[in-house]
């Protein structure tokens, strides 16, 4: 906006320099605002890594910094997935860690010894500044309006849809991936416009970087071929398109295959087949165009068209055959669930169980994008005004990304850039036409000259005709006149300013309230209004670090695997890298079975401690009892005869934890560990669970095979030690019963000879 107003004030070359300087200052301010709006959590809490996945990335980065790049590349981690271990170096996207490693080394070379944790915490805000800049560049390719790029940069900088994954401390792959996504798209548009190998190669390199950083690279892998395909269908094939796409595909595919985790997927999995198919199609179309240019016969052209169709059909048939023959890998589950929306729920409960993979309700869109969500369609419509290659890209991108973000909440992240760009297009169009100081003269006096002076399109009639012949938009038929009255200008501009101010306030409010909680540390308000920090997680992890053996195996639900690895530095059975469903189901079975069943499982896996999260005392709803059904479901997927979801519901179909709870529920290890000794906190008969809002039974559960080792201040984390085998060879139930002073029942049955138990 500032740049737009300065246009009229400053002219000629000094004006250009001043405008350039102003633009730079504005961009820097935008970057600063983008960084600043992500620092809520650092200011409120401290410089700390958030949530779950970032803890793994942080741990991997520490490993990288400590052991060097090649050790990191070959890293086999024996402290997770006990006893299987994980080939970590080959199963992660290394881009994030390597980026922060490089920054760390660069800062040290500049004699700035910064703690690696601070780099990790501040990486995402830092990159968000770059994303804003990349969005500015991308938008400038779309339009000639000087203000659109700056508006898009502001939107991108503070839109909650992007902030949700890039606040300080959210050290996740998306932190750098969104910058790479936008910048790759910018380079692609640039390459397409110029038709140069240089820009195409640059685009491919950044695509390779993107592949190394985030699994979402598949979005680019499919969007660019789709764009090319649409362009070819529209008859917009050109040598520029051919050069840029083939360069991008060849170098980009090679680059992506350098990542061990991706490996040969780009030539084998169906997700990448569209890129290959379009590559082949372009060769054919290129060939046909070449021949057509040489031989001007019309029949020959028709023949060639038939030939192209035939080849396309044959290759499609071959692709389908290869897929069914198993040469090309079938769709990976996560990707498949994007198309067949009912697939995940039936076949892969572990994917369905993740809240990020749920479909998006409309409030989430409004929450994350506010007014941009209704400016978005208007911006897309504006793209139809002048439908060049780059505008087609925005249209294709918007439709594809809106579909994906509707299916999966986390893909809102890929939608946000295009929403910001389109909304900025619409907003800048309005501001540009309503902010011009010069008004057109009233038609009475200048009826003869108005058209030529204002629109510059020639007479009305001819402009109309031209628009019709072009097949232009309905809204664009009349010649441009301008806004006559000052009142119109002021009212529209002030309304838009008000909306923009609401947008800024909304973004700040959302960021501050919804996206700035580290989830490792919880904050609550005391009655007097002061802030109270609930720090049970770190308390418990610190306890584990200080009171257990270096190699004590901790069993917990997979959500907490990365945190235990990162904060307590203890081996875990399962973690958030859910690569082995059976192993997770084993843990689920141990949690959801009787003690007599769970104990052998825990012994077999050498479990020393079991960690459960219990929110009943505090009213913390993200606890294990609420996640319990997923454990049951995942275990049922592997052992349908031993674990049954039905048994955890009462006859009336309720999921209850109080007196009505089913026997299976009350016998399950998870239930017992959550509510063990809970009664002792309350007067008799008064125990209540504040999450479920129910009164607990008079008598609490009895634990025989594990013993309470630690319970945090607010009872959020409870840690149990798995008992060793009894010294005298009794089973745990009778040993515990003896300890309690119960009289031993007479055993009449004589014991047979000892046999080796074989399972």
């Amino acid at each position: 906006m500032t740049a737009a107003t300065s246009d009229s004030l400053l002219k000629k070359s000094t004006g250009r320099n001043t405008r350039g300087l102003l633009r730079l200052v504005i961009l820097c301010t935008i970057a600063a605002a983008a960084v600043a709006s992500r620092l809520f959590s650092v200011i409120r809490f401290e410089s700390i890594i958030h949530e779950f996945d970032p803890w793994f990335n942080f741990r991997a980065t520490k490993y990288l910094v400590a052991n060097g790049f090649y050790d990191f590349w070959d890293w086999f981690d024996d402290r997770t997935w006990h006893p299987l271990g994980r080939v970590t170096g080959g199963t992660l996207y290394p881009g994030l860690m390597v980026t922060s490693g490089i920054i760390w080394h660069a800062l040290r070379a500049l004699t700035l010894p910064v703690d690696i944790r601070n780099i990790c915490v501040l990486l995402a805000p830092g990159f968000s500044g770059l994303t804003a800049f990349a969005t500015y560049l991308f938008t400038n390719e779309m339009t000639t309006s000087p203000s659109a790029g700056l508006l898009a940069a502001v939107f991108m900088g503070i839109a909650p849809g992007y902030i949700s994954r890039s606040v300080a401390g959210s050290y996740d792959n998306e932190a750098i991936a969104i910058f790479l996504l936008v910048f790759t798209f910018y380079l692609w548009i640039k390459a397409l416009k110029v038709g140069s190998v240089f820009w195409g190669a640059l685009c491919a390199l950044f695509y390779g970087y993107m592949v190394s950083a985030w699994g979402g690279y598949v979005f680019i892998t499919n969007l660019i071929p789709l764009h090319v395909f649409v362009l070819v269908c529209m008859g917009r094939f050109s040598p520029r398109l051919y050069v840029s796409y083939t360069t991008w595909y060849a170098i980009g595919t090679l680059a992506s295959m350098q990542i061990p985790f991706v490996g040969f997927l780009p030539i084998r999995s169906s997700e990448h087949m569209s890129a290959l198919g379009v590559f082949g199609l372009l060769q054919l179309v290129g060939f046909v165009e070449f021949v057509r240019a040489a031989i001007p016969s019309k029949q020959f052209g028709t023949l060639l068209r038939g030939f192209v169709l035939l080849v396309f059909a044959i290759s499609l048939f071959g692709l389908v055959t290869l897929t069914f023959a198993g040469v090309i890998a079938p769709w990976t589950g996560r990707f498949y669930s994007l198309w067949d929306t009912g697939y995940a729920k039936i076949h892969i409960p572990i994917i369905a169980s993740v809240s990020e993979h749920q479909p998006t309700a409309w409030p989430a869109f409004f929450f994350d994008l506010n007014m941009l969500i209704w400016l978005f369609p208007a911006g897309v419509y504006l793209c139809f005004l002048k439908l060049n290659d780059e505008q087609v890209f925005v249209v294709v991108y918007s439709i594809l990304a809106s579909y994906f973000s509707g299916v999966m909440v986390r893909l809102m992240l890929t939608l946000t850039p295009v929403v910001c760009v389109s909304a900025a297009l619409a907003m800048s169009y309005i501001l540009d036409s309503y902010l011009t100081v010069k008004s057109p003269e009233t038609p009475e006096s200048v009826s003869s000259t108005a058209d030529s002076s204002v629109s510059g399109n020639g007479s009305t009639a001819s402009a109309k005709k031209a628009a019709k012949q072009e097949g232009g938009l309905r809204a664009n038929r009349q010649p441009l006149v301008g806004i006559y009255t000052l009142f119109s200008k002021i009212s529209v501009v002030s309304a838009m300013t008000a909306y923009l101010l609401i947008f800024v306030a909304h973004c700040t409010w959302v960021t501050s309230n919804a996206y700035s909680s580290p989830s490792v540390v919880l904050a609550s308000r005391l009655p007097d209004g002061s802030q109270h920090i609930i720090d049970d997680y770190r308390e418990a992890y610190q306890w584990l670090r200080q009171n257990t053996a270096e190699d004590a195996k901790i069993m917990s639900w997979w959500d907490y695997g990365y945190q235990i690895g990162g904060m307590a530095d203890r081996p875990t059975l399962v973690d958030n890298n859910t690569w082995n469903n059976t192993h997770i189901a084993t843990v689920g079975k141990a949690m959801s079975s009787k003690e007599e069943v769970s104990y052998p499982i825990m012994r077999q896996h050498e479990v020393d401690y079991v960690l459960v999260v219990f929110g009943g005392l505090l009213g913390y709803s993200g606890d294990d009892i609420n996640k319990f059904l997923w454990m049951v479901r995942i275990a049922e997927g592997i052992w349908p005869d031993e674990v049954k979801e039905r048994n955890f519901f009462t006859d009336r179909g309720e999921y209850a934890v109080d007196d009505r709870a089913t026997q299976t529920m009350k016998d399950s290890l998870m239930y017992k560990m959550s509510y063990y000794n809970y009664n002792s906190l309350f007067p008799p008969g008064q125990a209540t669970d504040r999450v479920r809002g129910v009164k607990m039974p008079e008598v609490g559960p009895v634990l025989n095979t594990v013993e309470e080792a630690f319970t945090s201040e607010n009872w959020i984390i409870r840690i149990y030690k798995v008992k060793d085998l009894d010294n005298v060879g009794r089973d745990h139930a009778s040993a515990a019963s003896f300890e309690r002073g119960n009289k031993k029942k007479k055993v009449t049955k004589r014991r047979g000879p000892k046999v080796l138990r074989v399972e």
Partner: protein
Amino acid sequence: MHFFKALLLALLPAASLGAKKVATDKFQDFHLKALSSAPLKLADKSYDKLTASPRDYSVAVLLTALENRFGCQLCREFQPEWDLLAKSWTKGDKKGDSRLVYGTLDFMDGKGTFQSLGLQTAPVLLLFQPTTGPHAVADSGPLRYDFTNGPQSAEQVHAWIARHLHDRPHPVLRRPINWVRGFAITTTILGTITFITVAWPYLLPVIQNRNVWAAISLIAILLFTSGHMFNHIRKVPYVAGDGRGGISYFAGGFSNQYGLETQIVAAMYGLLSFATISLALKVPRIADPRTQQVAVLIWGGVIFVMYSFLLSVFRIKNGGYPFFLPPFM
């Protein structure tokens, strides 16, 4: 005397043979009946006979309530799958090697059985394991299949039954080829191709029309961003009552919505976008100053009021939301 003893001894195996023959016959009886019409249609009496112990065969019985007045949607949806499974199993096992009999007991024919089992819900699938013979199982109670996840396919039930009859042949499930559907699809494809060929000269301008594509794109975007996919996946109700006899248009809760609600939201987004497009493109092209002034006021007002309403609707969904615009506080 010795002769009698010898005779008795000689007859003993025969007697036992006879006894065995009865049991075998029972299975053969049912199996023969099943061959002609699987699954067997049972009533109280035949159910008791079929499941009486001792038995040396397995029985899978579906207890269901098909009549309309019970309103058991699940029963009616599962019935064709069950018939298909029973038919293809029995056909694939004509000799009766798997020793499994399929039966269906409708509530109308077997009220007594439903009462004696204490069943409140339908459908219920019971699998009785043999009590004698080579496949005998110690626990004589029937196994129960759960219909917790909605209607089940024949394949899922087939897998469940096969899991419990592990050392016996499991005839594969064959779905009949759906000729009608194949025919319909072929006709549709051919029809479409013919139509396109004939109408091509008329279709081409439509396909190449920018306005059509713009409309399609905008409608798709509005659908997706207003949560249509959520409705599709979660199968949310279109509207719900508010408990006082009225209609509740907006579902409570942030991650919850009704079908009608998303349509209202999509309409709001659409109107806001349309007003924005008009302000940006149409208004600067109006040649008459007075008309232009009116148009600016109208479209600006539409945006203002709609946005205010949108914010107020969002406040319903998210209780603590602090922002609003004047008309709808």
